[in-house]
């Protein structure tokens, strides 16, 4: 019994996150029967998958005490580059996909270099990078519409495997992988160490700069992958497609109990946060609430979730 209590105490934020999203889902289904239909759940799952994959990177970055605000345009650029490189041809994907992923990781490395090796504040660096990537993409495309994405991509993103959407499978696989990395590898240990205390990590022989660099690279890679999958699902591209992920990834990680100073949190929490956000957005749309009211409610729920998930303060 004591062990169970300790488990609950330790993982309080995460469990609160799951509970909140479940509660929200129940509320919606009560008010709008049929909401929780298999079809709709599938859509929710896919939205979660995309947000979840992008948030993999954000989770790692936040764990090291940083922040990645360049996700929107890494995400969007990846989609566009894929379209430009593959030119609508599924065979070209064989080289197009690796190149796009490489570019995304490279964008992450750009961020990481500034943050880790030049000591630039992550907010500023990634924000500036976001603008740079946006500018680069605007310049390259000149605002012209792009070719459709190759069929293979669309099949991959829209398809399912025995009823379970491919994207969900991909996300779940990646989730397990990330959780294993964080808890059972040296790299994961280093991430938590660097996020908790850069000094102690340095004194312990950990290469702080390289760890940070790696984490931003992974974030770029995650954003790029998600962008590619999202574009495949949509079938087409539009310039604003990454914007919604600017703050939602951070919110997902924060709702999941991670500390924005670093060193505390895990991906299971981010999953809970992702669920909460997606279910919440769906709930708000289902009630046909105007964007303005949605936004107000979103603010309150964000506050509420983080408030409930907070750690009981230190005693005086």
């Amino acid at each position, binding site marked *: 019994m004591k062990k169970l209590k300790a488990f609950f105490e330790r993982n309080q934020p995460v469990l609160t996150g799951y509970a909140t999203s479940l509660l929200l889902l129940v509320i919606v289904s009560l008010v709008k029967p049929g909401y929780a239909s298999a079809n709709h759940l599938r859509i929710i799952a896919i939205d979660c998958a995309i947000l979840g994959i992008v948030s993999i990177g954000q989770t790692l970055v936040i764990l090291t005490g940083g922040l990645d605000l360049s996700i929107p345009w890494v995400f969007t650029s990846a989609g566009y580059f894929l379209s430009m490189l593959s030119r609508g041809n599924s065979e070209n994907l064989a080289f197009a996909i690796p190149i796009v992923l490489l570019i995304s990781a490279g964008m992450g490395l750009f961020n990481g270099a500034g943050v880790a090796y030049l000591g630039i504040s992550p907010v500023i660096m990634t924000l500036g990078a976001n603008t740079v990537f946006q500018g680069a993409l605007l310049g390259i495309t000149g605002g012209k519409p792009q070719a459709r994405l190759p069929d293979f991509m669309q099949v991959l993103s829209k398809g399912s495997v025995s009823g379970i959407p491919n994207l969900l499978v991909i996300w779940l696989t990646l989730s397990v992988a990330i959780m*294993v990395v964080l808890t*059972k*590898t*040296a790299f994961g*240990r*280093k991430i*938590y*160490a660097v996020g*908790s*205390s850069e*000094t*102690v*990590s*340095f*004194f*312990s*022989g*950990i*290469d702080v700069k390289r760890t940070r660099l790696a984490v931003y690279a992974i974030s770029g890679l995650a954003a790029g992958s998600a962008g590619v999958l999202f574009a495949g699902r949509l079938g087409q591209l539009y310039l604003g497609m990454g914007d919604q992920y600017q703050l939602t990834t951070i919110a997902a990680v924060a709702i999941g109990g991670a500390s924005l100073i670093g*060193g*505390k949190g895990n991906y299971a929490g981010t999953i809970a946060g992702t669920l909460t956000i997606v279910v919440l957005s769906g709930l708000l749309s289902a009630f046909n609430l105007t964007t303005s009211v949605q936004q107000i409610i979103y603010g309150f729920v964000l506050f509420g979730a983080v408030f409930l998930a907070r750690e009981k303060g230190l*005693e*005086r």
Partner: protein
Amino acid sequence: MADLELIKVSKSFKGTRALFEADFNANRGEVHALLGENGAGKSTLLKILSGAVRPDSGEIRLFGKPLRLRKPYDAIEAGIATVYQELSLIPDLSVSQNIFLDRNAMTRFGIYSKPELRKRSLELFAREDVDDFDPDSMVRDLPLAKRQVVEILKAVSRNPEILILDEATSALSEQRVKWLLNLARKKADEGKIVIFISHRMSEIKDGCDRLTIFRNGQNVGEMGMGECDMDEIISLMLGRAIAGYFPEKSASIREEIAFEAINLRVGRQLRDISLRLRSGEVLGVGGLAGQGQLALFLGLFGVYRTEGEIRVRGQKVRIRNPRDSIRHGIALVPEDRATQGLILPFSIAHNLTLAMLKKLRWGCFLSKRIEGEVVREFMKRLEIRAEGPSTIAMNLSGGNQQKVILAKSLAFGPKVLLMYDITRGVDIGTKKEIFNLIRELAKDGNAVLFYSTDMDELVNVCDEVLVMHDGKIGAFLEKDQLTKENIMVASMGGRSMA
């Protein structure tokens, strides 16, 4: 009825009982020592007096009147000034701003004026016999020893009725300690109450009039300074008899030179440093605080850039960062536990293995089995007292935290150990264990470089001692030249007595 009374005060933190119906009495005109092992409740008692912590129950009376302290501001208003163990200075403010932070050192227009602050600081420095501080320097730029002095000056500047010194001497050199003890005496003679916590017996003997001993959250004895002897005091503190504070110095020095620095330059502070560490040797480093010892240790470990030659077992090596040092079998046990040695939110196990992650590899993963073995082995060997390997480091006492740091430094199997002031703020029982460990390590053939501000420790634990003065090695003392007097003389720059 005493001038200051704490009556049946209790306080628990998250289930741990720090104080249980504890009493404490002190009077004007005394320098009153508060003794006890780490975790005995002394710090909690003082934190209650300083308003930083609220008691669960009990009463405080000052000059007969009850006192309600709900926050630090209340204590300051009541005339209680505290010098904290973890310093309470603001790094980005200047020395004078820190000293005169909470009071009306303001001009008519409601602002702190820099020239006014400077003037008052210099007056304060003159009054309290301090002459090597610049009031406008940033606290962030000051070494630990100097910060402690600023902290003390800050408390004194308020002319408090009660002056509390919680391990205020731990980072000070012997000379500054004398200064502080004089200061305490002076204040007591002026009719104030001075409460003094220290882990150094010599200071307590020299500086205090009365003492109270705490054990397990309760007052177990109160007496005047001359009334009982040291052994009795220690056994009251520990609840058991303790024999032989310092271990035997067995002859363990071998021929092999484990570590050598030749003409080392560290930053701008140190020049032409050469030293030689043999296997099985404990080489002490002494001298007044701030003479370059920290730069030396951090330079040897790779935290600071160095020029010159470093050899490990005869081989020339390049040390550019701590990773290189660790790779070559050199370990540093650092000064500041909270910010250099431990990741407080991590468990004991995770802290212990932080420097040896490579050795835990099992394919791509970390082997829980190997980790468990290593952690258990070291927890046993160093007698780390905690519920288990997953206890969070933050919840350990200072002594146990130091042991975890030691274990971490030993876990990757180094042959050379650089120990920087590791007994600072550590209780007597743990200190003894650490000394034994050091001699044991020497016997096993390791080389230890040991810096301490406590000359007793240097004389009794080390085989030889280098005394640093003004960024250079002033003297090298061995065998019967290794005495406290010689260390003192060399610290001041003089030649030792033959």
